[in-house]
């Protein structure tokens, strides 16, 4: 069973890797914004499978953290790629 869980984690990690390769290549920056999203779903699945396989329940907390932080990073991607979103400093 543990073998199966690790194998499933490996398979999903490979899918995340392929997706990352596609997403990072661009060419539009919109494509790149999906990177954190990709890790926020596939990566968390890998993490949960690993947590179950290795019997480290605390790794689930890392998944919880990752789900919040991946969303946070994605928002920063969207705002960072379109500088018009950022207002000029008010004092100028």
């Amino acid at each position: 069973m543990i073998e199966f869980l690790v194998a499933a984690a490996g398979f999903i990690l490979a899918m995340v890797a392929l997706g990352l390769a596609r997403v990072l290549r661009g060419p539009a920056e919109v494509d790149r914004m999906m990177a954190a999203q990709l890790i926020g779903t596939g990566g968390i699945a890998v993490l949960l499978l690993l947590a179950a396989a290795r019997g480290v329940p605390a790794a689930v907390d890392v998944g919880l953290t990752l789900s919040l932080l991946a969303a946070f990073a994605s928002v920063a991607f969207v705002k960072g790629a379109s500088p018009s979103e950022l207002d000029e400093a008010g004092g100028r």
Partner: protein
Amino acid sequence: MTTATAFNLGLAVLVMVLACWTVLARGAFAATVGFVAYGLLLAFIWIRLGAVDVALTEAAIGGGLSGVLMLGAAARLRASEALIAAETIAAGRRLWAAALSAVTALALVTSVLLLPDPAPTLAPAAAENAAATTLGNPVTNVLMAFRALDTMLEKVVLLLALVGVWSLGPDRFWGGRLGPRHRVDPEGMLVFLAQLLPPAGVVVGIYVFWVGANAPGGAFQGGTILAAMWLLAMMAGLTDTPPSGSRRARLVLVAGPSAFLIVGLGGLWLGEAFLAYPLAYAKALILGIEFAMVPTIAVTLGLLLAGPPDRSAQS
């Protein structure tokens, strides 16, 4: 090759490809996106190394906060990239740099592989003295009791970094609000997210702090999650940063290190040593310091990312 080895190999290759991308990618934004992915996936290696505490910190800081810090900088420095593109480094020097890096990496690999066996370890000492604090998480024990001076000074470093960042603001903005103001998203999607996610995030942050006594987690990891949620609300334009002259903000900033310092001096006063906790109260004191530390860490990290004062005090 077992399944686990194949998995480790795949993970290592993926992380290394992302590191290569971050170093070699053409645009700064593309490189930063690679860095965020690298930071998030590095947490997986920490899990494989059995260091869940570090994995939590790395996921929260390495991928989340420092990635967002870099992204903001990349967005504001967009115009500088064309200017600096002309500054190329001669091929010969690149070759030298590559050789130097390769030699460094090789030396590191050999020295890690040549480490003495059985490895020297402080784990038995940490286990022996764990009863003194009655905390179940050995890493928290080391951080808060055995190496408490390090941890206290680490918080001081955070505060000093913030002082450094603030001192970079132009004189005319001193006392003003920190960082650029974010516009409220007209479609309201971001506002919606910033209203829904932080309540859940605050619960998670406090939970991570709370379990830190007996399981992986702690004040720093919890505080980082809280900082991320605060920054999310700022990015959506729901809240603004406090002015750098705000007394309340400054009070929160110094509360954590002060609590640490007071407990430390108390240990000295009771005649033992600086930061020596009386055994009967060790756990309560440690949890008290951590409790005081969570808001300080959240506010310090949030303001570190917000940047120096950027608007006049009147606005």
